[in-house]
């Protein structure tokens, strides 16, 4: 993990805060340690995000056969849109922003906005490789995953 995969933001957070609960707090803790966790089946290895019982076979109570595991943090763009409007006032300074649905190399789909220099050239231009960038908010106590197009 190179240093360039971490952005530190100290400005006050004026957007909605992440919804962190019993099911995803380990995931958000992982982000703070600059790890992108996915939910994996210890029996068959199937990967999920967000949390689910394994779809391939019977499960132990409360899906005890599953656990969080570190993903590669890479994937490809499955679809994206470009917001020209801030529907919520906290995003006024960011428009236009590219909001992408990313298919992780392990399979699950995850969404976030694109950072870095590269952008898809038009709406038909999907499938680019991306990697996770960790946006630390030390004053707020959370880290947000973003994606950057590589190669």
């Amino acid at each position: 993990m190179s240093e360039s995969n971490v952005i530190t933001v100290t400005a006050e957070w004026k957007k909605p805060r992440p919804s962190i609960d019993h099911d995803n707090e380990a995931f958000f803790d992982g982000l703070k340690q600059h790890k992108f966790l996915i939910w994996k089946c210890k029996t068959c290895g199937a990967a999920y995000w967000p949390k689910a019982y394994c779809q391939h076979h019977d499960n132990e109570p409360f899906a005890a056969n599953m656990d969080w595991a570190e993903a590669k943090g890479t994937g490809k763009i499955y679809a994206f849109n470009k917001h020209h409007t801030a529907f919520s006032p906290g995003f006024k300074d960011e428009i236009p922003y590219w909001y992408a649905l990313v298919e992780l190399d392990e399979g699950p789909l995850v969404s976030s906005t694109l950072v870095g220099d590269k952008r898809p050239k038009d709406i038909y231009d999907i499938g680019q490789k991306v990697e996770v960038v960790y946006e630390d908010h030390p004053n707020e106590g959370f880290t947000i995953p973003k994606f950057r197009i590589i190669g």
Partner: protein
Amino acid sequence: MPKHPSSGKYAIVGLGVIAGNQPDKSERMIAAEAARLAIEDAGLTRKDITGAIDLRRSGGGGDRASYSDAFTRVLGLSNNYYYINGRGGALAGLGMATAMSFIDRGISDYVCLMGAVTDWSQAQESKKKGYRGMAHAEKRGYWGKFVGDSTAVSHHSWMAARHMAVYGTTSRQLGAISVAQRQWAQMNPEARMYGRPITIEDHQNSPLLAEPYHMLDMSLVSDGAVAFILTSAERAKDLKSKPAYVMGQGFGEVSSTVWWDKKNFTHMAVEPAKKQAFGQAGIELKDIDCVQFYDCFTAEVLFQIEDYGFCKKGEGGAFVEAGNMAPGGTIPINTSGGLLSCYHLGDLTGLAESVRQIRGDAGQRQVKDCELVMTTGHGGELVSPGMCSIHTCTILGANP
């Protein structure tokens, strides 16, 4: 194909519609008034209504009615039960399915189902605080809000984007859906966009809000209410309005298979819903005279055209561009103007139009010899922003 024994055994016998912005009225009064109109339309009295269902985007969610202001109390109905039903834009379909159970067991003779919103009025207020659209209805969400998934179009536009990238669909083709529905709206004085026709260039020139979506790919934000009365086919025979018989209903959830197959950005959960509804009615797609597809955005219409089989998957763009869904086309779709051009009351918009088409009350836009109408509902993300939505299909008929 033989019909299911339940097909044609229930009917919609009263309809009440409050359309247009209602800046000086409360939601409970709009709701009560729509219910009053529906009861009057059926030729019934308040005492006849022995069951009531309040159709809301999320039963038990953020827009829950407080029980002291329910339209049933305001209007003074004789109902034995009142509860909230609905999910996202899937309201009328789900409400009817449960109401039939009460009728079937003799608990209710006549059920009043009603959905009301004051979204336009509330959006005027949130606009003053810098929001656009339906901020008042947005749930906190499990994921996405903090990275800019602010409103429905923030993730619904992926459906258009993915379909475009996979099948080569164009923005102009999506625009053809907007234009066709606006053409229908020009024949509907109740439509918000009556008297305001658009061209494909207007669609292309409308602001790009969440690309690939232009403003004219997005549905309206509305005030209003739709209420209707459901009863048995036997009772329906003696009432003053022409019954719209329930011929079949079906339901599908994206979370069953489509989401796991990652097809939820190009497909809706139509397959199981179609199989159930058409199977009950004992009909085929070619028997349908008129369609009211749920149309929160243009791509949802495109997906359903393909998923129901009006054309092959991926060929919906060419289908709509050729004018097939517009007035004079091969299959009349969203003849009221729909959510894009008439008003947005979830699937109640299509339900109300379906009843009118069956009755022959649709004025200039009336589909000739309209005997079978299909109306659908959609919505309620299970994993925002995962687009994990329900799909509902209801077939109404002129003959039991």
